């Protein structure tokens, strides 16, 4: 394989990468079922979620640490919901530290979790396995 062939393949891959990236940044991720709930308060909540490094222990869509539960659908889960979330944020648990959050911070975090809840389902528990190894959510 000559150097020019190597360079040609390299640049083809780079061009494809940038096209693919552009598509992922736009039409590939355009859908957001919860966008009406991404209020200013929820946006602050997202930044607080990062500031307190919640991802070290919790997951959104299964991504994050495993010390605590996945929070994607915490707000709509039976037996949990907003009051449950508020209580945990106020007091912490044996595993979760009490971050001494202010009332405003708790409101923002809850607003963010409400938004997250509307974006989709995680973990997916009802699905159908297709012949090609892919799955379809029921």
């Amino acid at each position, binding site marked *: 394989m000559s150097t020019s062939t190597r360079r040609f393949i390299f640049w083809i891959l780079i061009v494809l990468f940038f096209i693919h990236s552009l598509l992922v940044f736009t039409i590939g*991720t355009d859908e957001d079922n919860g966008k009406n709930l*991404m209020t200013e308060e929820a946006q602050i909540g997202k930044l607080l979620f990062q500031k307190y490094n919640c991802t070290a*222990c919790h997951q*959104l869509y*299964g991504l994050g640490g495993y010390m605590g539960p996945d929070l994607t659908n915490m707000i709509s889960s039976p037996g949990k919901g907003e009051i449950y979330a508020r209580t945990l944020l106020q007091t912490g648990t044996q595993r979760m530290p009490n971050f001494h959050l202010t009332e405003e911070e708790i409101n923002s975090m809850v607003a963010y979790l409400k938004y997250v809840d509307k974006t989709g389902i995680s973990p997916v*528990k009802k699905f159908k396995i297709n012949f090609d190894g892919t*799955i379809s959510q029921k």
Partner: protein
Amino acid sequence: MKKEIGILFVSLGLIALLIGIFFGCLGAFQFVYPDFLKEISFVKIRPLHVSLVVAWIFLCSIGGIYYYINYYCETKLWSARLPKIHLWIFVLTGVLILVCYFMGRFGGREYWEFPAILSIPIFISWMLFGINYFKSAFKKAGNWPVYMWMWATGIVFFFITFSESYLWLAPYFRNNLIRDLTVQWKAYGALVGSWNMLVYGTALFVMTRIIGDEKIAQSRLAFFMYFLGFANLLFGWAHHIYIVPSAIWVRMVSYFMSMTELLILGKIIWSWKNSLSEAKRNFHILPYRFIVASDVWVFLNLALALAISVPAINIYTHGTHVTVAHAMGSTIGINTIILLASAFFLITDITKHEFTRTQKILIKIGFWIFNFYLMVFWVCLIIAGIEKGILVIDDKLSFQEIMTQINPILTVLAFSGIGIFIGLILIVYPMLIAVYNYLMKKEKVQS
């Protein structure tokens, strides 16, 4: 000084590795015993562990590349000063990051959990590395061997993916969770691919030196596999986000691409091992032993990676410890073992140090302890993950009940972490002693 820079990067990397694994052990015990070491919560311990281990991978890869490019690649390092500045920026930024973690100041993004502002010096230091590498590499006459292509790709794509991982700073990305998660894991998938390029390039370099035949690094097969690996880096990341509701094509593209990279490396190592004569193995016994061990880990991780890339399996394993097994198998089982081989090669090459019989025995014992407990650790993660995955999908138990159920296996995991740590100490300590003696001797001669 050019030699010392390589050895300083690698030695700092070895220290970061030991401290990183130490924090990993603490984190594992916090998982099992929530009251353990409450003063430093898991929120701090986890990023300390992750960042230090990532620092080890970068330091050892970069140190090796600085040395190998100057002494083995038929070219000279363009600047001897830039690596020193690079090292200082790396160390100072690293210290600041650790201070931020201890003070509880986070950026809160997986992998890069430090405040976003600290990404600027990292970016600058990487620019210095990139400029120096390309200025040196372009002076080389003739074709680049495949490992130089791999290093170049790793450097360029670190820039691209590191920048991409900070797109969340723009509201367009940040305020749409689906876009934010997709782009974040697109960047991280490729970012891991970029450091794998540095590490696997180093593996191929060490192999060619042990064989003493450069042809393996110019072969058509090596380049074919490099390009497959590169394509994988670019497009094979979406198995991290199969359940994130992005467009279906985003996920399907990588279903077919994902994780062929390990198969590629396995093939190269396999071919290489069969062609090696007994005499050469004995001459480079320490690097050889580690490269062969990485071969075993490549095959184990290959099987796991292929399995979890199938959406029907991924639905059970995603968000469980199986994902951690994949990450640990790759970073410790493959990357660390390859980089330890490189560290042995580089340190013995520079210091001309002959390890004593006792040191060799210690390294050998450490090697087996390390691999044995890593295997126990890895298997525990897989068992815990599968159990958790089935219980979650079954939907009959709460999170707390699931954690209680898998607690015994996590306890075994935590104790096997100590075994990994002890094994590493036995391997790393003689290397650090050799470096220390070399630097002291050098200082004496100079004074």
